[in-house]
């Protein structure tokens, strides 16, 4: 008998197809962290209030703690682990190091994934990314260490 509380899903994660049987209750965040050992996406609040769990779902930034994995069947997911090209860091990753845009590092993968999604959003809208605009657009990612000015500087450098 098929267990209605489990489901077989397929996700393309960082370019690799993953066939998984999941508890319907499992969030994408827990599947990434506990099933696939992709611990880059962080659990800071588990309620969409901090942004640490941000990944790209079908190219758009999203909070993986509020996304049920079962509802994402067929989606493609990019996590922070999928950004670098071999040893070559993604420009935002390099800029975060250069600008010291993190301290404890726990919000960092979410900040970087969010910034990638945000830059694409701004590009599609044709919006100008002033520092003020970056701050507003990045406000869904909380950094308790207070690295905001450096985060904005890192993003602004890549945006140019």
């Amino acid at each position, binding site marked *: 008998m098929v267990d209605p509380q489990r489901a077989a899903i397929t996700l393309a994660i960082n370019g690799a197809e993953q066939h998984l049987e999941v508890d319907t209750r499992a969030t994408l965040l827990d599947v990434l962290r506990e099933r696939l050992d992709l611990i880059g996406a962080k659990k800071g609040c588990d309620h*969409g209030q901090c942004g640490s769990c941000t990944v790209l779902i079908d190219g*758009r930034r999203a909070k993986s703690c*509020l996304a049920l994995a079962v509802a994402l069947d067929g989606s493609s997911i990019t996590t922070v682990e999928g950004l670098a090209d071999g040893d070559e860091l993604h420009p935002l990753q390099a800029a975060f190091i250069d600008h010291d845009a993190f301290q404890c590092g726990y919000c960092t993968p979410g900040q970087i994934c969010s910034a990638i999604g945000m830059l694409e959003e701004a590009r599609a809208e044709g919006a100008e990314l002033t520092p003020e605009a970056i701050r507003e657009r990045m406000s869904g990612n909380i950094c308790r260490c207070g690295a905001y000015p450096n985060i904005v500087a890192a993003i602004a450098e890549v945006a140019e």
Partner: protein
Amino acid sequence: MKPFAYERADETARAVSTVAGSHGHATFLGGGTNLVDLMKLGVATPERLVDVTRLPHAEITETKYGGLLIGAAVRNSDLAVHPLVRERYPVLSEAILAGASGQIRNMATIGGNLLQRTRCPYFQDVSKACNKRAPGSGCPARHGEHRELAIIGHSEHCVATHPSDMAVALAALGAEVHVHGGQGLWSIPLTDLHRLPGEMPQRDTILAPEDLITHVELPPLPLARNSRYRKVRDRASFAFALVSLAAAVEVDGGNVADCRIAFGGIAHKPWRARKAEETLRGRPATPDAFGAAADAELADARPLRDNGFKLLLARNLFVRVLTDLVDG
């Protein structure tokens, strides 16, 4: 989180009948940004989720009358940046972008946004009383911590506010909500969708559980090209409104020819300011007139012990936004 079955709906009628036949145990799943949150908290305990995000309600189309028909499964961010919305209904774009965060706006649907639940702290904590969550258990907010809660239209049973920004703009714009329900297809003005708490605060809206919002329709409204949303909150971004205001105004010869105004953050529903609108039509477009109109609207407000500041804030915000709109 209570175990539940999941199904992805591919046909609206089937989705509706599934929920209708579940005796209240099934519910629709949109973007999940509020429902999953509430399920983790134990506030929502559905046994079956019917995912409606893949139903064919994900388009934004222009109506033959020159309005917009917005599918309920459209994501908030897509609506906010839609060229026709930006051009014809800037207040709606601004309201959506003032809500939540970029990530959540990418996930949340239009239907889900309208049906999100209050962020009253007592409602969200199952260890505490709440008439909305557990009818009859009491309202600890009324005499407790209610700084962010309602000042108008509340009842002794509930002082919650509706958290949506988008709904405030839609209320001002006179949007119509299309429903595919157990009783067939019907529609109602958005301002009649949400209820005041009265004696049944457990019901946020007039919808039955199986009533699925399929579309939101915006009427053609030329004056909405001159419209604005302003939200006041405790930090500069990523917080719910203390008070917000959506307004559109048309001035002719120094007088208010027509206007559409709604408040957010002050009531159990988006608060369309009809008294203020009536007061203003044909009157001079001056700060004094705006203040008088706000006073007329807020005359029925009954602030609670710790949220009296919202009354003056609502008035000042009203005057400010209307004045800015008139000044261009």
